[in-house]
């Protein structure tokens, strides 16, 4: 294995090459652009045997991916922000047709106002699109999760598309050491794609994704729902096999850190998890009982795992890099649902929007508030807009 300094974008592109994606259709958008540029280079250099389809928009990119996947080949694409929004119409088509398309989503703020920096508000509207969604917090994980994504997505049990999310710039444009997976090892982990459903084949004609009357629709929806539930098992297995083969255990659905005897736990998504990891070490050294749950999979949502942790602690904070206007952070809403009925102080911290830095001091602030709530059992402010001018902290 070669350890190389590379960006998250490179790691994503490299992962798609090693997974032997055979069709890529993508449209460039900051900060995802380098992913498709790297893929073009791989193809140009003869390193990647893949059909690259140049398209005029993300809507077409996803449409082409759906068609390619429906014809029985492994497909990959990548996008960000407005591009993802433009794809919106086609996303449920991919999941409804049960196509294991894998897409890297470089999470960037959505307009207006225009902003190119990190925020999770671009992917949140796709929560119910039937896509499995995983958030990464380092570049190694980005590469590894592209490979795992195919393993999770493909096969009869799941057969759903996967979005591998990485924070704009903080991962996409930051270089970190990454152990690059060799082709032999990748082939062993991600076997050749064999489609499980009907495929578009001129010699064996079939129609897929066709007009469906009320007589069948409920059953279609139910199957997709069931597939999403089945994904939990597939995600655990993909992680286990990966850990055994490559020696890296990313944790499956969630990655808890120091939660066993913790009084206050913070639930984070994306790179805030990595920064919080350092703060946990620092506060633990001072004898403060804090823990961290890195929420990796957003869909399917790990309700039971989170509830099991929540039952043992005295206060939980949920950090959101997104907001559902008028109600709170999406991850907070989901978490409250998971712990419904438990007598537990839960706080929401909304921060890091549009690329605002989530500093060590910010994370310390969240833990101090949580420890206070753990001590008193009282939540003074349920939703805190971190470091926002004009908003009481």
């Amino acid at each position, binding site marked *: 294995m070669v350890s190389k*300094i590379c960006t998250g974008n490179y790691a994503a592109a490299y992962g798609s090459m090693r997974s032997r994606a055979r069709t890529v259709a993508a449209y460039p958008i900051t900060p995802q652009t380098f992913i498709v540029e790297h893929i073009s280079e791989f193809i140009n250099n003869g390193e990647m045997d893949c059909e690259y389809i140049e398209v005029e928009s993300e809507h077409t990119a996803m449409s082409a991916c759906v068609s390619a996947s429906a014809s029985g080949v492994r497909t990959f694409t990548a996008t960000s922000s407005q591009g993802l929004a433009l794809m919106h119409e086609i996303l449920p088509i991919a999941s409804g047709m049960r196509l294991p398309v894998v897409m890297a989503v470089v999470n960037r703020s959505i307009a207006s106002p225009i902003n190119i920096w990190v925020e999770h508000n671009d992917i949140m509207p796709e929560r119910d699109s039937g896509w499995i969604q995983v958030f990464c917090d380092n570049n190694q994980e980005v590469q590894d999760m592209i490979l795992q994504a195919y393993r999770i997505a493909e096969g009869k049990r799941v057969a759903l598309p996967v979005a591998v999310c990485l924070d704009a710039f903080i991962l996409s*444009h930051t270089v970190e050491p990454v152990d690059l997976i060799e082709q032999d090892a990748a082939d062993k982990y991600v076997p050749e794609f064999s489609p499980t459903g009907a495929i578009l084949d001129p010699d064996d004609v079939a129609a897929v994704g066709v007009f469906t009357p009320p007589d069948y629709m409920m059953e279609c929806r139910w199957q997709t729902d069931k597939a999403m539930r089945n994904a939990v098992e597939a995600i655990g297995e993909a992680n286990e096999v990966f850990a055994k083969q490559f020696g890296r255990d990313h944790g499956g659905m969630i990655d808890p850190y120091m939660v066993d005897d913790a009084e206050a736990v913070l639930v984070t998504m994306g790179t805030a998890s990595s920064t919080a990891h350092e703060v946990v070490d620092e506060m633990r050294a001072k004898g403060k009982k804090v823990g961290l749950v890195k929420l990796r999979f957003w869909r399917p949502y790990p309700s039971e795992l989170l509830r099991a942790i929540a039952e043992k602690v005295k206060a939980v904070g949920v950090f959101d890099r997104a907001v559902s206007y008028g109600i709170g952070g999406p991850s907070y809403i989901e978490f409250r649902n998971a712990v419904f009925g438990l007598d537990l102080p839960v706080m929401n911290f909304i921060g890091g929007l549009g690329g605002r830095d*989530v500093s060590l001091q910010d994370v310390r602030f969240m833990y101090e508030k949580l420890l206070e709530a753990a001590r008193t059992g009282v939540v003074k402010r349920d939703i805190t807009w971190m470091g926002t001018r004009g908003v009481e902290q």
Partner: protein
Amino acid sequence: MAAQALASAAHAEGGYATAFPFFGAERRGAPVLAFTRIDDKRIYRKTQVYEPDFVVVLDEGLLETVNVVEGLKDGGAVVVNSVRSPEEIDVGIDAKLATVDATSVALEVLKRPATNSSILGALSKATGIVSIESIEKGIMQVFGDRLGEKVGERNAKAARIAYDRTVVGESHGSRVLKASNKWLPDVRELPMGVAGISLDTDAGAVGPGSFLENKTGSWKVFHPEYDGEKCTMCNFCWFYCPEGCIYRKEDRMEFDMDYCKGCGICANECPAEAIKMVR
């Protein structure tokens, strides 16, 4: 790319390193920030850098507008691209300071004023944080990978020459520069209502920035030298200037050096050769 090459150099020595730009609209000539973190174990923090150990300044002109040593740790060092000696430079504090004329090195070796590779040689000499051999390797990996082996080699050579020419000394500073809270500009510090509507919100007054404050002329390495004798007043320069900083006067052209970025298009277009780009 320099920040990445430095990270690559540290990685080549067996360390862990991350590097990232200050994410924004990067382009050559404009003031940009980039950071590198180096450690012997995995680095978890994904925050911006507020307290650097070392500061590298690629354009001396920035010393006039930015407090480059803000947050610099005690015992830290500053590396400046300058023809002056360390003792002649005032960064506002007493600090270990190294200088090298990286622009000249770059012009000699690369034939263009791209100082990001040369300055890494100076950083290596001034701080010893990574060896010059590792810097060369890092440059080969980052520049070489992206721009081809030959370009990589030339940039590595520039770093080596800069390493040899770097003067390490002490600077005794006294001048005071306005401190800002963070690397991120605070909207409250921006001039109000110069180019648009200002809004009074709960979060305070929010107004657009203004180029009255932001003199982009500091980006240039070369500036146009105008010869009124040769000028035929054909107005080509005025027409082609992408920045709109050439003005037509009665009997001559006038150049606004506050905003001229030194692109040289005027000199290139001038049929009478009345404009020359000089350093």
